[in-house]
């Protein structure tokens, strides 16, 4: 394949803390080192970027030795937690700032969309802002003129095109801004999380437009998002960044699974329930499911004293901490008397996990005599969206909690 972006061991060093304290002396040291042809004295003390651990140096590698290639016409997803280095990578690629080390080679014109509506001025009309924003993004006036009608049409603001944008609703503002970007014609387009704004309808339109552009015109797109659905829809291949380093690269679905697994608890620790019982095991046959998949859950309890178990249920919570389902195990012959030291192991089969995509917390309800306990957040599973046809689904937050297994045929 034709390589259009080749990044070789790019690194980016950031200085943390107050900028301006002691920088003059650091600058001098650095400059002296540079003049004498030595390595940057402050580059050595950096460490990988981990926000949760307080480093003991003021310098941090936002990116470290990152190498990758992107082929022509490819749509590459970039995934990672906050602070993993995604934005830094995009900034380097779009030349907003330069790398500390390494090199990126690019073939073709590159345009970046790290924000929609960069440079919009509220006092200027929609039309004027189209020109201003378009030229900022690298188009010439003539190019914009030839696409003006399409842009206005895509944004759906024909009536207000000569009104100052300060009178626009925020939705119109975003639509106009994205419309300009959508008609950029670079060989390589870099898009950052911009789909997070705007209504669902418009988001669909945008994702559709991006798909079009890569499929029909053979253009390369680099796409960063926290929205795994959008990444999954758009990208053939993805990079996973972690702490500024390249963790994995490969087909998007694999990378998403790897990414989501990194969120899950590693290993299961025994959970004590009061003094009478302990949960030794609660495991699903996988950490990551596609909506509609079957699941097998293994549960093992051990009793420390004689117990009259009168209730046991698995609890499912979504990200908003709403309980969305339980599996009541009372009917499966597990209630009754247990001696001290006795264990109970059972396997629960679920024919399909019907939840919409998201992360789910699993808990357990135990009832024994006077003791009733909800033990929440024991393990987590991730459910991914099932692809159905070519239509891009609405965002998860609009779709309730379950995917109904439904069919529809036209009868009249």
């Amino acid at each position: 394949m034709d390589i259009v972006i080749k990044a070789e061991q790019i690194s980016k060093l950031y200085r943390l803390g107050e900028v301006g304290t002691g920088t003059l002396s650091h600058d001098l040291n650095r400059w002296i080192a540079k003049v004498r042809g030595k390595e940057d004295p402050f580059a050595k003390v950096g460490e990988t970027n981990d926000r949760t651990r307080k480093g003991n140096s003021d310098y941090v590698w936002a990116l470290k030795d990152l190498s990758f290639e992107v082929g022509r016409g490819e749509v590459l997803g970039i995934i990672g937690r906050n602070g993993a280095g995604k934005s830094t990578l995009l900034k380097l690629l779009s030349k907003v700032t330069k790398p500390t080390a390494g090199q990126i080679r690019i073939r073709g014109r590159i345009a970046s969309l790290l924000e929609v509506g960069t440079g919009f001025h509220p006092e200027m009309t929609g039309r004027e802002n189209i020109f201003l924003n378009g030229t900022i993004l690298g188009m010439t006036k003539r190019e914009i003129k030839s696409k003006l009608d399409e842009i206005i049409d895509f944004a759906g603001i024909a009536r207000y095109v000569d009104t100052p944008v300060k009178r626009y609703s925020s939705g119109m503002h975003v639509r106009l801004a994205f419309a300009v970007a959508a008609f950029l014609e670079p060989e390589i387009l870099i898009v950052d999380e911009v789909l997070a704004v705007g209504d669902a309808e418009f988001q669909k339109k945008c994702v559709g437009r991006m798909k079009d552009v890569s499929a029909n015109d053979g253009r390369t797109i680099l796409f960063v998002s926290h929205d795994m659905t959008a990444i999954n829809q758009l990208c053939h291949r993805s990079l996973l960044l972690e702490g500024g380093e390249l963790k994995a690269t490969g087909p998007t679905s694999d990378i998403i699974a790897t990414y989501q697994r990194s969120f899950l608890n590693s290993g299961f620790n025994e959970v004590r329930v009061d003094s009478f019982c302990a949960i030794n095991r609660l495991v699903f046959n996988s950490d990551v499911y596609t909506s509609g998949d079957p699941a097998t859950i293994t549960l093992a309890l051990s009793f420390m004293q004689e117990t009259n178990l009168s209730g046991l249920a698995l609890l499912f919570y979504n990200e908003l901490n709403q309980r969305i389902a339980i599996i009541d195990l009372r009917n499966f012959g597990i209630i009754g008397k247990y001696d001290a030291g006795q264990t109970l192991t059972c396997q629960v089969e679920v024919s399909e996990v019907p939840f919409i995509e998201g992360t789910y917390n699993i808990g357990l309800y135990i009832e024994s005599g006077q003791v009733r306990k909800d033990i929440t957040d024991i393990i987590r599973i991730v459910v991914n969206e099932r692809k159905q046809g070519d239509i891009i689904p609405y965002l998860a937050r609009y779709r309730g909690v379950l995917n109904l297994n439904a069919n529809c045929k036209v009868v009249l």
Partner: protein
Amino acid sequence: MKGDTTIGSDVVPSQWSEVISPDDSLLNLKLREVWRYRDLLMLLVRRDFVATYKQTVLGPVWFFLQPVLTTLTFTLIFGRIARLSTDGLPMILFYLSGITLWNYFAECLNRTATVFKDNAAVFGKVYFPRLIVPLSIIVSNLVKLGIQLLLFLIVWGYYIGVGANIHPTGGLFILPLLVIMMGGLGLGFGMIISALTTKYRDLIFLLTFGVQLLMYATPVIYPLSSIGPKYQWLLLANPMTPIIEAFRYGFLGAGTFNGIYLCYSAGCMLLILFLGTVVFNQVERTFVDTV
């Protein structure tokens, strides 16, 4: 890899159209890229005007009001009360000429010096040759200067009409050169300061103060001839001095018009402009990390 550390659409060896790397040649000024973005320059100039004068009651009248009010103040304070010499020229014309030119230089300098701070949001999000923004500042100030010169010409015409003691000379034809020199000086100094202020913010406070002081070190409110020959060289070290003096000589017939002084100014302008561009281009590449 030293050979292909070029950025931008300039010559890049091999089939790659662009190479992004930490080192960049000091002398790679990316002027070709600036030319490619010329449409943006014009739109930024336009934005400047729309932004400044939309929703002000008087609108473009402010262009005239600023120099007129300053001239009246100077006439009152420096002319009537302090009784400073004006080389025998009508006070209004003397001060108006000085102020019109000085304002152009000072505005170019002030606004270029804060260009990184003022545009941090845009610069952090999208790449275009940053040099476009200072250039657009120079151009929009040029338009402003044009309008204010018109005012000056009207007043000038009036004084000629009433037969005041002014004698325009052929020197007035070098006006375009003077304007270029002032713009270049403002841009060059501004870019140097802008590069410094990205790291050391306090320089901005110094700037406003410094520009004001510089005005008193330039023959804006007094003529060069009123300074004793012992100290004249000090004033002449300021590259703005010969420019303002030459303008007054050209239009009003009093002042110092000296080819060597003007060449000195032009030389300063070229040097500072070059230095400014180099420094600006260096800072431009990483300033996002420090704001």
